């Protein structure tokens, strides 16, 4: 390994000096007072001359936890000293675990002996040539200079001592003790950071060395396989586990979990979200790019990736805040406010880069959309689960949510990046003439355990490159999800996938409407849908309704209990084989579900983990049925000390398998043909048999015999003979049963209500089979075929859980089109998102503001105003020039947009807008809607304070804007309050252009002028670069933050100018070519029009 950074390193590279107290640069936490008392802006002494008087300023004590300073009054300290002590105790234990865990990870690197085996084994399987190189790498790792692992032990020892001191301090909660313990922990944390930095340096060098291997392999094998399968092996750990772990630390550092529980306040939650937004994206991108290097597209720079991740994390934080605030009663507008479309668009851009090709490619669009929808579904599910858990366990929502937050974030990011690569793998697999491609893709999936990330993976399915062009199917709104859940009892996750499947495959999918219980179970995080190996029936009766349950004579679970018992008995082998057990109440479960349950109940996570371990061991010994008293005795005998607690926690755990959808029938939307979807077993043959033309073929393929004893009970009549008439049918008994008469298979009225999902995203619900057929006759029209005579498209398909549209595991496809306009707009946003050195944001160029108006079909010409408003605003130009703002109006004179930048401050920018509006005079006329837009490249999509934009310590409304306080109520001084800052909170709509009228099929008969007008309407402001359509425009809502000088509480009010809200945009909505003066743009547009294209 020549020029190896690993071997060429010097031991000094990994040396670090222990931190000193005066080197600590601790931030102030959100808890406690905002100002240290000596410098508090409001501290005053009322004095007089010539007398003696005393000044004793208010004292605030410094409490340090999670390396943040918190200022509290002595009185508060006395009241809450126990809480502080508890937090420090938790912190010491967490820090202890943190260092120990890092030690464990590092130990794998420092001494990779055990590790090498798995590395060699994994690589040998596919890459024999790489084995030597991998071995060489780890040998090199062994002999290379590296950080001393004993440094971890020293820190652990220090941490242990502090933990001991914390315990000892419990009996004497003096301020000095508490303060010094906080300092000590901060010092240990700082030292651990320095050590981790050295370890990271070493590890990165090792990974760099590994790259020489992976690069070699890249040429020989598909990139996706190499990246996904080999690199994680080389790195020796699950990188996303490490990411989740690091996020946990960030959460802890923000004082979120423990401090949040003990001292829950909104300010802490806000700060936590702020810290997450700031710290998590760079860290995640670091993990992603170090592990998936080579797979990240060349065009996607680090900043871009951070931007994408940031969007997702911000979306998560905002969604959680909103859900916590409003409950699940979110309406569509709420979700729009959250910027779901923005998230979708950002994801789409990333995916199009990852997958290559143009973003407008149908395949790219489909994958992008499905991934975005999965992400949102995952988020939604996790948040609802946390909410439900909080409710049932009587805990704070945030307490539960934060416990799960690291994995939620990782799941989203994993879904985005790894999911994209996996889909890419699938595409590679199904490239023409790729014989081993599918196996390769399956290997990729296996290596990545994709099914644990998304229930909806379908990589083994070829992508449809020849899908006809149809109207895109947009994402489901929350209201729709709710409606589907109400009407069809479908969990939102399944509903979305089913709808997408029907659309993508252009099929009508009919299925039995599940019971309410199924939807409820599907919402439980720790429960899972029935995998293929579970054949047993789910209960429709009793307390375990909706879950796969062991049926007995004494405890029937269904009306057809005997059948259920028979099925159960057939399933026992696969239950044993797959490690599942039966709970004492008969519910079938897998021990892994307990681990999931533990994630939702953090307080008892260790108990759940232990229970899962015990049950796994117990099951491996052949025990599986805890309804059997002997099995329970065996458990108690094997684990005498733990069996009692285990049984108790198992009984209350939310575990079990709920059933997949029961598919009724699938039709091709174009032909009305029936599409067989089966399990690849004899039952499918039976299904197929009710089609006349297949019957003769079936006789040849099914195992025909005339032994009536082999008939299943339901095939026999009361006399023990076949129930079906033998007239005109095959003389063979078995084939007669398989064929049957038409009505034998046409089970009118059987099975309860049937639901249908169509390719246009619509749904129907029919009370019975007859109504279903009638409905399909109407829906399909002439394509409808009678049940007994339906054509069948293709051949019998092999079903597995990934292909079955009813198992919640379907491919997802295209939805909203990501066209060039959107793509360019997103890129434009991204490129313009820059911050100045102090984080205050930069001004948006006037040209871009002007173009943002013009591209929406608005005119800034005085003539248009004069025309629309009868010359009311003749001096428009002078007003605009005076205030440095823009006013633009649509051609109908129904919308007026006043826009401006923030040249000095937000207050200043607002004042300019307000002065413009005031100077325009009689602006609010009937039929005219006024919109205000402010452009400033402050942090994108954020709700953080815009600090120092209205003054630091010198807060308050300045005299410079007081003159417009009548137009802007936020500028009116409030007695006892001062304006503290502005902030952005959510979104609201700004002016969106109406869609242009459709172009006529031919313009041959139109005049040149008319054709030019049409062309302009469809390309307005685009310079010929972009297709028409601007979509819905939403800006961020500007809020004013007020500081109550007495209580020091912050309150928020929405900023409005003359009663209209103000939208803030973090970049221009459209770019303006360089060297163009804003006020000249209209003329320029005219010059740049290309009439020749249409006129000539």
């Amino acid at each position: 390994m020549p020029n190896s950074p690993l071997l060429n390193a010097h031991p000094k590279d990994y040396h670090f000096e222990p931190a000193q107290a005066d080197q600590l640069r601790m931030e102030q936490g959100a808890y406690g007072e905002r100002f240290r008392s000596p410098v508090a802006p409001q501290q005053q002494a009322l004095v007089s001359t010539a007398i003696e008087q005393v000044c004793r300023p208010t004292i605030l004590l410094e409490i340090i936890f999670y390396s943040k300073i918190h200022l509290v009054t002595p009185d508060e300290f006395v009241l809450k000293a126990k809480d502080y002590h508890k937090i420090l105790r938790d912190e010491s234990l967490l820090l202890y675990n943190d260092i120990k865990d890092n030690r464990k990870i590092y130990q794998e690197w420092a001494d990779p002996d055990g590790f090498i085996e798995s590395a060699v084994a994994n690589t040998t399987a596919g890459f024999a040539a790489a084995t030597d190189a991998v071995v060489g790498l780890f040998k090199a790792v062994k002999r290379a200079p590296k950080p001393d692992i004993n440094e971890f032990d020293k820190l652990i020892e220090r941490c242990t001592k502090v933990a001991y001191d914390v315990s000892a301090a419990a009996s004497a909660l003096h301020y000095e003790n508490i303060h010094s313990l906080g300092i000590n922990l901060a010092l240990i944390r700082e030292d651990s950071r320095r050590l981790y930095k050295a370890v990271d340096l070493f590890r990165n060098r090792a990974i760099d060395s590994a790259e020489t291997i992976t690069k070699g392999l890249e040429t020989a094998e598909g990139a996706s396989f190499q990246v996904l399968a080999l690199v994680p092996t080389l790195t020796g750990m699950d990188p996303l586990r490490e990411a989740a772990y690091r996020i946990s630390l960030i959460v802890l550092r923000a004082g979120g979990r423990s401090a949040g529980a003990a001292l829950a306040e909104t300010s802490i939650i806000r700060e936590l979200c702020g810290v997450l937004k700031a710290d998590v994206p760079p860290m995640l991108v670091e993990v992603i790019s170090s592990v998936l290097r080579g797979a990240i597209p060349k065009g996607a720079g680090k900043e871009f990736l951070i931007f994408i991740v940031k969007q997702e994390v911000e979306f998560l934080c905002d969604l959680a805040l909103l859900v916590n605030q409003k409950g699940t009663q979110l309406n569509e507008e709420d979700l729009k406010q959250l910027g779901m479309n923005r998230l979708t668009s950002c994801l789409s851009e990333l995916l199009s880069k990852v997958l290559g090709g143009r973003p407008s490619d149908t395949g790219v669009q489909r994958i992008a959309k499905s991934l975005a929808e999965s992400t949102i579904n995952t988020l939604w599910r996790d948040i609802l689960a946390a909410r439900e858990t909080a409710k049932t366990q009587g805990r704070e929502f945030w307490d539960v949510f934060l416990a799960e937050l690291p994995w939620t974030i990782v799941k989203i990011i994993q879904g985005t990046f790894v999911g994209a690569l996996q889909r890419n793998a699938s595409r590679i697999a199904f490239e023409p003439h790729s014989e081993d491609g599918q196996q390769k893709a399956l290997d990729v999936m296996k290596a990545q355990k994709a099914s644990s990330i998304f229930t909806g993976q379908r990589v083994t399915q070829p992508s449809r490159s020849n899908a006809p062009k149809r109207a895109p199917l947009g994402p489901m709104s929350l209201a729709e999800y709710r409606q589907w859940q109400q009407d069809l009892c479908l969990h939102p996750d399944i509903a979305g996938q089913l709808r997408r499947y029907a659309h993508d495959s252009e099929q009508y999918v009919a299925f039995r409407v599940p019971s309410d219980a199924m939807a409820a179970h599907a919402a439980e995080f720790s429960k899972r849908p029935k995998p293929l190996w579970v054949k047993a029936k789910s209960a429709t009766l009793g307390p375990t309704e909706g879950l796969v349950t062991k049926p007995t004579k004494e405890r029937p679970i269904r009306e057809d209990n005997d059948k259920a018992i028979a099925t159960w008995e057939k399933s026992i082998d696969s239950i044993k084989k797959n490690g599942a057990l039966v709970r004492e109440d008969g519910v079938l479960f897998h021990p892994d579900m307990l681990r999931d349950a533990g994630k939702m109940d953090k307080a008892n996570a260790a108990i759940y983990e232990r229970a899962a371990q015990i049950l796994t061991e117990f099951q491996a010994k052949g025990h599986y049925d805890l309804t059997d008293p002997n099995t329970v005795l065996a458990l108690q005998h094997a684990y005498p000390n733990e069996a009692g607690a285990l049984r108790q926690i198992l009984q209350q755990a939310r575990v079990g398998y709920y059933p997949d959808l029961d598919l009724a029938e699938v039709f091709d939307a174009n032909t009305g043909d029936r599409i067989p979807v089966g399990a690849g077993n004899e039952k499918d043959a039976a299904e197929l048999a009710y089609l006349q033309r297949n019957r003769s073929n079936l006789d040849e393929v099914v195992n025909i015999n005339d032994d009536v004893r082999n008939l299943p009970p339901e095939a026999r009549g009361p006399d023990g003979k076949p129930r079906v008439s033998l007239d005109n049918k095959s003389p063979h008994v078995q084939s007669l049963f398989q064929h049957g008469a038409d009505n034998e298979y046409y089970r009118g009225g059987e099975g309860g209500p049937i639901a249908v999902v169509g390719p246009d995203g619509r749904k129907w619900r029919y009370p019975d089979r007859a109504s279903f057929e009638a409905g399909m006759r109407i829906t399909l029209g002439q394509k409808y075929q009678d049940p007994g005579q339906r054509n069948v498209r293709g051949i019998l398909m092999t079903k597995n859980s990934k292909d079955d549209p009813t198992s919640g595991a379907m491919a997802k496809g295209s939805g909203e089109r990501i066209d060039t306009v959107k793509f360019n707009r997103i890129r434009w946003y991204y490129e313009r998102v820059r911050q100045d050195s102090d984080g205050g944001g930069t001004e948006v160029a006037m040209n871009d503001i002007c173009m943002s108006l013009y591209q929406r079909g608005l005119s800034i010409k005085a003539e248009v105003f004069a025309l629309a408003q009868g010359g009311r605003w003749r001096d428009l130009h002078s007003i605009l020039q005076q205030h440095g703002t823009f006013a633009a109006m649509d051609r109908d004179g129904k919308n007026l947009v006043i826009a401006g930048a923030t040249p000095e401050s937000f207050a200043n920018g607002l004042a300019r807008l307000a002065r413009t509006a005031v100077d325009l005079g009689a602006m609010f006329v009937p039929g005219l809607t006024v919109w205000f837009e402010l452009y400033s490249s402050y942090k994108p999509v954020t709700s953080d304070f815009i600090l120092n934009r209205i003054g630091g310590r010198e807060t308050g409304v300045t005299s410079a804007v007081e003159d417009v306080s009548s137009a802007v109520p936020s500028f009116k001084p409030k007695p006892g309050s001062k304006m503290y800052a502005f902030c952005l909170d959510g979104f609201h709509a700004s002016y969106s252009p109406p869609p242009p009228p459709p172009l006529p099929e031919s313009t041959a008969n139109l005049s040149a002028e008319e054709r030019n007008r049409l062309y302009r309407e469809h390309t307005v402001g685009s310079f010929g670069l972009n297709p028409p359509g601007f979509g819905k425009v939403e800006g961020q809502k500007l809020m004013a933050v007020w500081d109550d000088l007495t209580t020091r509480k912050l309150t928020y009010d929405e900023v409005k100018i003359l009663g209209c809200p103000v939208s803030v945009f973090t970049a221009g909505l459209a770019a303006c070519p360089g060297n163009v003066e804003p006020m000249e743009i209209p003329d320029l547009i005219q010059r740049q029009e290309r009439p020749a294209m249409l006129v000539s």
Partner: protein
Amino acid sequence: MAHTEDRHHEVAQGETTVQLALEAGHYWSTVWQHSSNAQLRQLRKHHNVLLPGDVLFIPAIRVREVSKATDQTHKFVRKGIPEKFNLQFLDYDNKPLADAPYVLTLDGTATTGNLDGDGWLRVFVRPDICSGRIEVGEHGSLAACDLNFGHLDPLATMTGVQARLRNLGLYDGPIDGEVNDLLKEAVRAFRLAEELPEGDEINDELRQRLEAKHRS
């Protein structure tokens, strides 16, 4: 501006006898000790601790003629200028911030020095000074506050109690004469510290202790 007629002045917030006398051209004692202010003297213990609304008699200026030789330099010293400003700084444990460095900013001019061994700031200031700022310790690390001269009301009033409790770091509410929750809390804390009977009553005993503690 010198006043040529006797007048009664209604004291506003921030005004002191010294300040008003200076403005009228008097030495403060001339005004305060005037027989017409005898009733006010009985009511207010100190000439610089007045209550807004107090009526202070300010006599007309009496022109005194002094004969001095020409072609010589004569020095006239106006009595009562400058004024002494005395402020003691205590820490949370009521120990003086002995010898601590300070920065005193008056009229935009900063002066530095050290408190004395008992934590006292003893400096001369203009009698009509209205406001200033003091920072004790490095960058105000020990104490920092704005100084509002003439705003200390008599102890007998509720605003006087509020002001003193605020100076003692116990009250952070408005100086409005209202008995609010913050004031009750501060009184309770003061009573606890002074080992007075528990409660939030503001009585003579509390005022005496407060005067002793605040020294005025």
